[in-house]
């Protein structure tokens, strides 16, 4: 790889979440997956009303409470203590996933192992016969939500691409991802493949392409 990142500083997790949070719109109903996506809630521009869903049965989930405000009966899908937005309500599991599968959420933001240029998502297992599968609610969110954004590191720790021509890991959903936010760039999934709509300062398209298996396109 000749491309370097000498002057470019990859986003840290908080900055990745903040970048995605910028693009959430007023009035959207949003589910945030486990991991980095959870951080998106902390970066919504003030005054912008966004309603968060947690698939274990909250519509109108608020931020982590202060320690003296913890309700042990109120957790999110990552089993962390949360609070409620005014206007929140509770749902049982069939209603909560009916809401997901029925196409009512505007957006979910998920982590991923791989995203392919056709929108395929792989985020639940790294081998074909994972003995401990962790599907959870991801397959329902992937097929049911109007927009599916992925928030992930652009490459694995050992430098392999996650933004790929074709997923090699077991799929969560086919053709479902609409946008990818990484620590290096923002990519839209389009009919012609990945289109770069944002890139961190100091990084060239060539350097980004060198870290990406799929072919990148310009807008």
């Amino acid at each position, binding site marked *: 790889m000749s491309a370097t990142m000498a002057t470019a500083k990859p986003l840290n997790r908080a900055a990745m979440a903040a970048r995605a949070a910028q693009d959430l719109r007023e009035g959207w109903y949003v589910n945030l997956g486990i991991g980095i996506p959870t951080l998106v809630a902390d970066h919504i521009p003030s005054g912008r009303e966004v309603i968060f869903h947690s698939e*274990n049965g909250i519509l109108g989930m608020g931020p982590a409470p202060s320690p003296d405000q913890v309700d042990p*009966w*109120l957790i999110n899908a990552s089993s962390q203590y949360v609070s409620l937005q005014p206007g929140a309500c509770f749902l*049982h*599991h*069939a209603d909560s996933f009916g809401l997901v599968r029925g196409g009512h959420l505007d957006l979910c933001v998920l982590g991923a192992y791989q995203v392919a240029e056709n929108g395929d998502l792989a985020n639940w297992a790294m081998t074909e016969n994972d003995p401990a599968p962790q*599907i959870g609610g991801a397959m329902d969110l992937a097929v*049911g939500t109007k927009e599916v954004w992925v928030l992930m590191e652009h490459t694995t720790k050992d430098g392999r691409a996650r933004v790929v021509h074709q997923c090699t890991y*077991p*799929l969560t959903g086919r053709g479902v991802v609409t946008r990818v936010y990484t620590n290096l760039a923002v990519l839209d999934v389009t009919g012609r493949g990945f289109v770069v709509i944002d890139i961190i300062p100091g990084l060239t398209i060539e350097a980004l392409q060198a870290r990406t298996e799929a072919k990148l396109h310009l807008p």
Partner: protein
Amino acid sequence: MINKIVRSMDEAMSGIQDGSTVLIAGFGHVGQPIALIQGLVEQGARDLTIVSNSGGRGHTGPLARLFEQDRVRKIICSFLRASSLAGELVRVGKVELEVVPQGTLAERLRASGSGVQAFFTPTGAGTKVAEGKETREIGGRECVLEYALHGDVALIEAWRADRWGNAMYRATGRSYNPIMAAAAKLTIMQTQHLAELGELDSEAITTPGIYVNRVIHVPYGDPPPP
């Protein structure tokens, strides 16, 4: 007079057979009927199929006791941690596993309680969970045929319940409780609070007593920390 309130855990657990499919409600520790799971451990039924959102964490807690005592033949869940005892037993082939997307698991339980025998869902189409299943394109979407999931026994945790078995839950303690209550032949409920008949708001009862066979008062115990 109808009175579903039982006075002892023995009475609550009586009649659970070897080979039963047991639905265990809750998400994380919240809404998980810990006293009833402990009751099942003591009751002794074997060769169980456990239906639960996850296989639990680590090696502690009453659910892990069931696995430790070799009482579980199969687990049906959406999420299995490699580090859990259930995960370890599945890996070495001692416990059978059926993994189901969470929304499909919820819908299969809801189907059972509501007399729907099977349904077509887009969830999982084109993935490993659709392998070997009937698929069909409906309304332009590829769908997977999934079947109702019936329980012999459901273990439920309510916040408040009355002698008819009407119940309300608290916050995310709701989760699988209402749909599992309706999906089993024998539904056993622990409740942190008892209410007089007529005291629960008719507009806010979440599980009607028709789905509940036995209620036991377990007047302590917020969920343990995650």
